[in-house]
């Protein structure tokens, strides 16, 4: 498309470059001198636009809203503080001020996704060194939350990925990022951070558990293979896995991903400013901006579109609550068996089922779209979580402990 390419060149020059942006420039304000519109939009991620039915930018305590989490995360940092997430502007400060950081010693690995300095520090210190250095030792060199530099090549401004964990994980999946289309990049830049992760080995190397695939079963299989355990729940004694924001993984199983729709299509929709279109850099809930986010593709009125989302989310939320009840019933049954004197050997099956049930529930509970990114898959995963939790409960209540007589079940 010869003449298109010509236009592109014009296009690329159109915004006049006031300053030369250095390769290591992190400060959005400096980038903003060349791209004032995007900078102005990006700065609005500091705004609180309030709550949506299941999301939004009000950083309420998830522990207060869903007390079941206190029981399910018992013994793990997430039971101390866990809030609804908000805009990119808070990425660093919310981490630094989280009780999970203040009360626990965390590794530098935490900084990978919360500080724009990460790529430079990694270059400087080396990958492993960066990850296992205590977070508090790194703290002094962390100043910038989220920056243009996270997603853009400072010179060409093309989208680029800057986080080693993502690059390694894609390599493990056999995906060559050099081949990525522009449209895929509109998702990959987000998949650097909005994904499930763990810290591998002594050096706490940030790793995404993707080598078997992105489905929840693939991720569970991976953790079983490497023998990973996030923590042992005190009362149940089960070795559990914690899932964190698998937004990209769940999205990948959905109809939108399948239709080639990218994260940016919905979370950074084109917006007309004057006579020109810009990508809306105010990353937020699309429910706060339905007309640009959805209506271009869906010629449906705004109210109806919001209803479609909220109905999908309400179904997911209801099943999520049911899974919580089932898992807590399982924990109670395991505890009761223990108290009655059941041995670890006798409790092995119940605890294994509990682990599988809870990581599935957490996969959907910690994902941020309340099921919208893949409605049927979210319901499927919760169905399995409930089934496994109830089986854990059954295994526990049917344990034969000295002092009680064999249960009567035929199954």
């Amino acid at each position, binding site marked *: *498309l*010869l*003449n*298109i*390419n010509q*236009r*592109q*060149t*014009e*296009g*690329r*020059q*159109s*915004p006049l470059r006031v300053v030369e942006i250095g390769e290591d420039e992190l400060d959005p304000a400096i980038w903003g001198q060349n791209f004032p519109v995007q900078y102005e939009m990006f700065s609005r991620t500091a705004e609180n636009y309030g709550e949506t039915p299941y999301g939004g930018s009000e950083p309420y305590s998830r522990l207060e809203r869903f007390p079941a989490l206190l029981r399910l995360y018992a013994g793990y940092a997430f039971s101390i503080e866990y809030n609804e997430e908000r805009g990119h502007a808070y990425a660093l400060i919310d981490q630094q001020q989280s009780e999970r950081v203040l009360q626990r010693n965390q590794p530098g690995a935490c900084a990978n996704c919360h500080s724009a300095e990460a790529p430079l520090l990694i270059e400087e210190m080396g990958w492993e060194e960066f990850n296992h250095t205590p977070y508090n030792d790194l703290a002094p060199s962390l100043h910038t939350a989220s920056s243009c530099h996270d997603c853009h090549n400072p010179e060409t*401004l*093309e989208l680029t990925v800057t986080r080693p964990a993502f690059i390694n994980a894609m390599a493990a999946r056999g995906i060559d990022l050099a081949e990525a*289309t*522009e*449209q895929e990049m509109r998702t990959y830049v987000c998949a650097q951070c909005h994904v499930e992760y763990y810290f591998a080995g002594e050096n706490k190397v940030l790793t995404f558990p993707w080598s078997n695939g992105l489905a929840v079963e693939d991720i569970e299989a991976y953790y079983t293979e490497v023998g990973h355990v996030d923590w042992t729940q005190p009362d149940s004694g089960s070795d559990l896995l914690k899932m964190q924001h698998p937004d990209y993984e769940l999205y990948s199983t959905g109809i939108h991903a399948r*239709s*080639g*729709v990218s994260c940016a*299509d919905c979370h950074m929709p*084109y917006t*007309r400013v004057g*006579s*020109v*279109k*810009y*990508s809306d850099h105010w990353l937020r809930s699309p429910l706060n901006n339905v007309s640009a986010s959805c209506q*271009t*593709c*869906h*010629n449906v009125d705004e109210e109806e579109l919001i209803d479609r989302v909220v109905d999908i989310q309400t179904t997911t939320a209801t099943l999520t609550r049911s899974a919580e009840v089932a898992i807590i019933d399982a924990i109670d049954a395991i505890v009761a068996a223990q108290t009655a004197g059941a041995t670890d050997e006798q409790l092995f099956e119940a605890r294994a089922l509990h682990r599988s049930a809870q990581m599935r529930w957490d996969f959907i509970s910690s994902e941020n779209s309340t099921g919208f990114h893949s409605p049927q898959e979210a319901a499927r995963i919760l169905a399995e979580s409930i089934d496994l939790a109830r089986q854990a409960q059954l295994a526990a209540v049917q344990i034969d402990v000295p002092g009680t007589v064999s249960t009567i079940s035929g199954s």
Partner: protein
Amino acid sequence: MRRLVGTRTLILGGAFMIVIGVLVGLGGFTFAYAKGTSYLSNDPETCVNCHIMRDEFDAWSTSSHRNVATCNDCHTPHDFLGKWFTKGLNGFNHSLAFTTGNYPEVIQIRERNAEIVQENCIACHETLVSNVYGLHEDQDRSCVDCHGNPGHQNRNTQ
């Protein structure tokens, strides 16, 4: 999602030969329908000489573009040679298909014609999209991915 790939190259000689070939072809295939001239006109009505174009015509006449763009504004290149080359090629393809009745249940735009449409979208909306579409050499995103079908509005996503 449709990927737009490849670049259109027009070789003068080839173009002329095909155009001539097509005129012969048209005469041969659709004389009976007496629609040989359809492709040479800018009047949408002439496209509908083929009832088979009726759905698209109807959809166009209710689209946001009915007052601003006719069939050829979108479906044929804006440069002179390309215009006649395309009219010839499509005229040949479609006349052949129409005459033999050998075409899909649901007509779908061909890759090459999708590229032409894309160029025409941009031609008219250059300023508006210059910014967002100025970023990459290999532009692989079709406007229609998001804008459904401005010319027709006959897809569910519209």
